[in-house]
């Protein structure tokens, strides 16, 4: 039986219409089949053609229906539920096809129009299914939680709470006023352990003992030159020894101080040493008569001393709670700051803003003050909550890390200038006494009297330079030699070459 319908018989196409009918049995087709077209409803039944017609197993033929009807042989499971009267009526008239009634048609047409369905249309669909594509739609793949801009992932640097590496530092003197840790440009870490100075090569991991003091003397400070070739060692006797790191031999001894040399700072060929008696001596290490200047302005032990990277200013902090800023050419401090209420050991010049100095106070003070050394104004302050033992600025990020003693013994990372604390790292069991920054600026080393030396990768580089990712603790030195004058901190200015060039470099 072909599906061609050449007659304009029948034909409501809408399923709604069948619902509009009032016949009890839904499936009109079975009760009232039209002999002509299978599956096409006749006019009388307001049947439904609103179904996809698979054309298999159509309704039983009329003849078959007749016999069934007369025999009443259908299985009725629940007699009481059956509407016997109407079912009998329907069965009885099953064989008589309903004639086309003009009024019925008109009725249906009006109903159809009311329903908004046109009578003589049919909806056709192409039998064949549309081809499916098995490929994953790349648009979906790529439009999923996108926004993985590299910028955002790289700025999300991980700062671990655990050290990268832990070394043993037996015999470290538990004295707040000493400065026994320094990291050279050549990736050598010098640490003064009681009477000896040990050099640890961060690249290879070798340890060498550089010198050994006699008698009761102990090492009170160590400081590398800016290019990492010479190490200045200050002793409790008041001597300053200059050692050649490569040959591991002592070049000269500069004596004269009356008390121990607790802190030193290099400025090209000038070494400034801070003494327990409060004096700061400037030595020119090239000449025999090395003492070039004596700066006296502290009433207590000088425990913080650092030259600015351009060598114009020297900052010193002492046990008398003073911060003194010295002009290189004079022996009288340019100005003094008395804000701190405890000894000022932590001093650091900002690498990106030349006149910005950060100073940290001891256990009674616990503050870090920021100074504009040009205008002498105090720019900012942080109450850190613990004794500040050291400050290091990051070269790559606008951040600084402070190391602390009483009571929390932690490292704190702050962003500047917002001064929000980025992270606290519980570093040691006892006071973090000394901190030094690696030449590539990515790690800091901390030493505490719990006799451990720990390395923390705080300033992981954003990876723009070729040697990113590999710190100096394990690997390559990324600094270039022959950097500019002065060492305002162990990090030095040479580390800038390995870092993001788009960042503003040192303002000369």
């Amino acid at each position, binding site marked *: 039986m072909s599906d061609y319908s050449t007659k304009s018989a029948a034909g409501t196409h809408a399923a709604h219409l069948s619902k509009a009918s009032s016949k009890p049995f839904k499936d009109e087709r079975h009760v009232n089949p039209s002999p002509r077209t299978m599956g096409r409803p006749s006019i009388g039944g307001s049947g439904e053609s609103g179904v996809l017609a698979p054309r298999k197993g159509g309704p039983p033929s009329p003849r078959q229906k007749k016999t069934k009807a007369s025999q009443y042989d259908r299985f009725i499971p629940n007699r009481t539920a059956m509407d016997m009267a109407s079912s009998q009526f329907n069965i009885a008239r099953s064989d008589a096809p309903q004639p086309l009634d003009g009024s019925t048609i008109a009725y249906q047409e009006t109903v159809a129009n009311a329903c908004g369905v046109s009578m003589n249309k*049919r909806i056709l669909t192409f039998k064949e299914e549309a081809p499916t594509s098995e490929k994953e739609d790349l648009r979906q793949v790529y439009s999923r939680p996108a926004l993985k801009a590299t910028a955002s992932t790289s700025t999300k640097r991980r700062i671990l709470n655990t050290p990268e590496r832990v070394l043993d530092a037996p015999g470290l003197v538990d004295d707040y006023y000493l400065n026994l840790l320094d990291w050279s440009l050549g990736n050598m870490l010098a640490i003064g352990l009681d009477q000896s100075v040990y050099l640890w090569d961060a690249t290879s991991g070798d340890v060498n003992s550089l010198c050994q003091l006699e008698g009761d003397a102990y090492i009170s400070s160590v400081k590398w030159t800016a290019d990492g070739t010479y190490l200045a060692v200050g002793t409790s006797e008041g001597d300053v020894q200059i050692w050649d790191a490569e040959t591991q031999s002592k070049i000269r001894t500069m004596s004269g101080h009356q008390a121990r040399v607790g802190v030193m700072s290099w400025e090209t060929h000038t070494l400034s040493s801070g003494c327990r008696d409060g004096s700061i001596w400037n030595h020119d290490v090239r000449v025999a008569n090395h003492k070039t200047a004596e700066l006296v302005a502290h009433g207590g032990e000088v425990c913080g001393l650092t030259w600015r990277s351009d060598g114009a200013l020297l900052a010193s902090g002492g046990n008398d709670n003073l911060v003194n800023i010295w002009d290189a050419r004079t022996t009288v401090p340019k100005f003094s700051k008395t804000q701190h209420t405890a000894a000022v050991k932590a001093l650091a010049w900002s690498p990106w803003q030349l006149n910005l100095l950060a100073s940290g106070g001891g256990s009674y003070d616990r503050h870090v003050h920021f100074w504009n050394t040009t205008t002498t104004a105090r720019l900012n302050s942080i109450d850190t909550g613990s004794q500040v033992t050291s400050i290091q600025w990051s070269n790559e990020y606008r951040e600084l890390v402070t190391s602390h003693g009483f009571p929390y013994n932690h490292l704190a990372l702050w962003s500047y200038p917002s001064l929000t604390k980025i992270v606290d790292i519980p570093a040691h069991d006892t006071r973090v006494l000394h901190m030094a920054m690696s030449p590539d600026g990515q790690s800091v080393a901390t030493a505490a009297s719990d006799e451990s030396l720990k390395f923390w990768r705080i300033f992981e580089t954003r990876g723009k330079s070729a040697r990113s990712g590999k710190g100096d603790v394990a690997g390559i030195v990324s600094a270039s030699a022959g950097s500019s004058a002065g060492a305002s901190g162990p990090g030095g200015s040479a580390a800038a070459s390995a870092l993001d060039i788009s960042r503003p470099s040192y303002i000369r």
Partner: protein
Amino acid sequence: MSVQTQLTKGKISLKGSARIVTEFFNFGINSILFQRGIYPVEDFEVKKKYGLDIWVSNDISVTQYLKKIMDSVEEWLALGMINKLVLAVNSRETRETIERWQFDITVTDESKGEEKQPQPQAKSEKALQMEIQAIFRQIAASVSFLPIIDEKCTFNILVYADSDAEVPTTWTDSDPLHVKNAEQVRLRSFSTDAHRVEAMVAYRRDPDLC
């Protein structure tokens, strides 16, 4: 046979118009398949038509499928037997229609409509192209308000035909496949001299937005 020559003669015949409208449907359906991501992007290539770059499927099975459909559609158009063409986008898993693009076709041929006034000006090809361009631009722009389709989908082409139309075996009857809780947006229309096509899209109303 060139539609152009027929155009320059003055007005398009029903057959020529049918060809134009079928072409429009073909490109329109391809464009919708591309925009809605029914098929992955790499299955499409750019073709220049109507002064626009339209993305057309280069998958053989899809083009053949559409060709078969369009052949029948063109026939019906020429006879004026078709009054709606619907592209229903169904989700493959739930088999529900999530989007429904409906194109209403009315025949404006004056031989059929007695009440028509004197024939409007024969439409220039340029004007026709502009109108069709506008619809394509709207289809592309509709991405901004249509809900994102995350699931794999398939589509069905439905044709509302006259009951006395000749239906080849490849077509069967079907439900209208309306979208439940639909939002409807009427798009622009175009008309050749013989046919007028209006476009509309119905999509699922986002329950969160209401």
